């Protein structure tokens, strides 16, 4: 090899030095990335109704605890159960469930045991909420109630008076022919029809004869019905006046529209209303159970309760006294609108104690399939 050639070629030593330099240069961004990774927020997988993982609810918790919510939204308890059933254990860290489905979550082994001492049960606004049906099993806690709301007659104030709306009878009012809408889910509507039929002791626990009567009553409403709507459709149709009354909903929809200036509202009629109840659970085998638990505690704190009460997607009542007090402090108008002030006629606790509220449940003597079958039949009638 000539000297010239030697000087132009790269020696083994040069190669090692050069390679080391190149490798270091290439590794530098990786080092940066891995340092960044150390600061990356922890992902929390949330399974919930729409709105619960949105910034108005979770952003402050995310910032404080360096977590990032990854929400998966569902519509209806069956849908929630199916999503969990079809996912491997540990997929969801936090599960928001309608209370009537907690029992099924528990029986299927989809949720973790909780420590009751972690939550402010002593501060709950009603005794029933401390020991909500299905939330405890064999003395162990599996789910904690965080918010609730009441369903009744939702109506357009320009068409229907408060007096007319004080009974489910108003859905059959000739002024509403073709203008009664349905939230497209059988449980709330059939519960209301059951109450209208006088099954106030147990609207979801119907024997064969009572169930037949509920079907008959519901069918008689069909000529009044203008449509069956999902969440967005319910909002739109009430807002633009296409529907003047809505069966199967309550303040969780009209409250949002009311704040937006639409002439709609909801009342619990004389036959009684249905309560929807949302509870948090921790998913089985969650690797982030600790932070999930802290989020549940956050949502039960006075501040978290206000976030829930003012949730942009749909408002709810607070479950703790401290939460209600905080709401009155920061947003008295909303507290008054929703009756969360002492002595209000529509105070949610007063309504429960007067026996006018019935907790939504799954059918006790029929299967969900029977009720759904009838719902399909009703929609086709």
């Amino acid at each position, binding site marked *: 090899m000539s000297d010239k050639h030697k000087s132009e070629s790269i020696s083994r030593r040069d190669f090692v030095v050069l390679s080391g330099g190149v490798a270091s240069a290439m590794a530098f961004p990786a080092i940066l990335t891995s340092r960044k990774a150390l600061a990356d927020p922890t992902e929390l997988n949330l399974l919930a109704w729409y709105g619960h993982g949105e910034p108005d609810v979770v952003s402050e918790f995310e910032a404080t605890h360096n977590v990032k919510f990854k929400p998966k939204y569902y*519509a*209806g308890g*069956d*849908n929630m*159960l*199916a999503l*969990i*059933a*079809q996912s491997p254990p540990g997929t969801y860290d936090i599960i928001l469930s309608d209370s009537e489905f907690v029992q099924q979550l528990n029986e*299927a082994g989809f949720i973790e045991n909780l420590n009751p001492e972690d939550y402010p049960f002593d501060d709950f606004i009603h005794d029933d909420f401390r020991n909500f049906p299905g939330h405890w099993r064999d003395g162990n806690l599996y789910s904690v109630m965080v918010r609730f709301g009441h369903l009744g007659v939702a109506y357009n104030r320009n068409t229907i008076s408060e007096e007319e709306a004080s009974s489910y009878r108003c859905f059959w009012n000739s002024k509403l022919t*073709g203008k009664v*809408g349905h939230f*497209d889910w*059988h449980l709330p509507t059939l519960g209301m029809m059951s109450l209208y039929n006088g099954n106030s002791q147990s609207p979801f626990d119907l024997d064969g004869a009572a169930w037949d009567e509920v079907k008959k009553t519901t069918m008689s409403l069909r000529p009044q*019905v*203008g*449509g*069956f*709507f*999902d969440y967005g*459709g319910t909002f*739109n*149709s009430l807002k*633009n*006046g*296409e529907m003047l009354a809505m069966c199967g909903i309550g303040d969780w929809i009209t409250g949002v529209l009311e704040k937006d200036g639409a002439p709609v509202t909801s009342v619990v009629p004389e036959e009684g209303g249905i309560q929807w109840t949302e509870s948090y659970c921790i998913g089985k085998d969650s690797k982030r159970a600790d932070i999930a638990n802290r989020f549940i505690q956050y949502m039960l704190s006075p501040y978290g309760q206000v976030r829930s009460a003012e949730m942009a997607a749909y408002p709810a009542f607070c479950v703790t006294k401290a939460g209600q007090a905080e709401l009155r402090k920061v947003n008295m108008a909303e507290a008054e609108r929703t009756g969360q002030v002492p002595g209000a006629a529509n105070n949610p606790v007063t309504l429960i104690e007067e026996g006018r509220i019935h907790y939504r449940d799954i059918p006790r003597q029929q299967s*969900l*399939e029977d009720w*759904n*079958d009838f*719902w*399909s*039949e009703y*929609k*086709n*009638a």
Partner: protein
Amino acid sequence: MKPRHNMDIYALTWRLPVLVWQTLFFIAPLVFMIAMSFFLVKNYRMVEAFELVNWMKMFSRDYFWDSYVLSLGLAALATICATALAFPASYALAFMVSDNIRRWAIFFLIIPYFTSYLVRIFSWYVLLAEAGIANGVLGYLGLGPFTMLNTAFATIVGYMALTLPLVVILQTLSMANIDRSLIEAAHNLGAGRLRTIVSVVVPAGKVGLIVGALFCFILSFGDFVSPYYLGGSKPPTLTILITDTTKSGQQWPRAAVVAVTMMATLMVIAYSAIRYAYNRRQP
């Protein structure tokens, strides 16, 4: 015989991608869907089985057949409306404008497909609402207001938004390729404009007209958005029944029964239509 053998390999090579594609993305999912229709659901989980219970359950329900007839009826009505509404426009574009204008017209007919169908349907929601633009215009003429949303009328409007531009394009392309000498011959033989259309243009453009109508039928029959958002799900079509069935109890196998029935119906209709389109008149 050897050249023929080479020819087959050559042809097969070119056909292979289509075969693979169809097998992977049509036949395999279809077979799975058919198999799924025999599965069972236990505790919200699908369990592999071979049971006829889902078929018996769905076929024994009146609401299934009501939805079936409704879906067929609405799709047929949409097909008639789209074909009738598209024909004058297509005729004009094929015979009465320059090539340049026709190209621009086809371009403009494609533009609606640049936006999401769902967005277009929500625009119609605003237009058709009781206090919407359509009733506002009619109000100036002293008419209305009419209830248009949550009716079959609104569903058909939605189907038109989905299919009409496509039907116009297919009809136009078909008629633009008709040999002009045939039309001139008809005129020379004394046929008037209407007679020429009936006796020459329609038979000569038959394939395009039928394929356009077929696409309209297929898209309308399988559409969920218009009957749900504009028709108010009142009463539900088969597509809405599929979602209802999956929402409650996660009955995917029963939804598969509905879907397979829809597929079978479409296959019979599509096969008949194509066969009719390419059926040459006997001498």
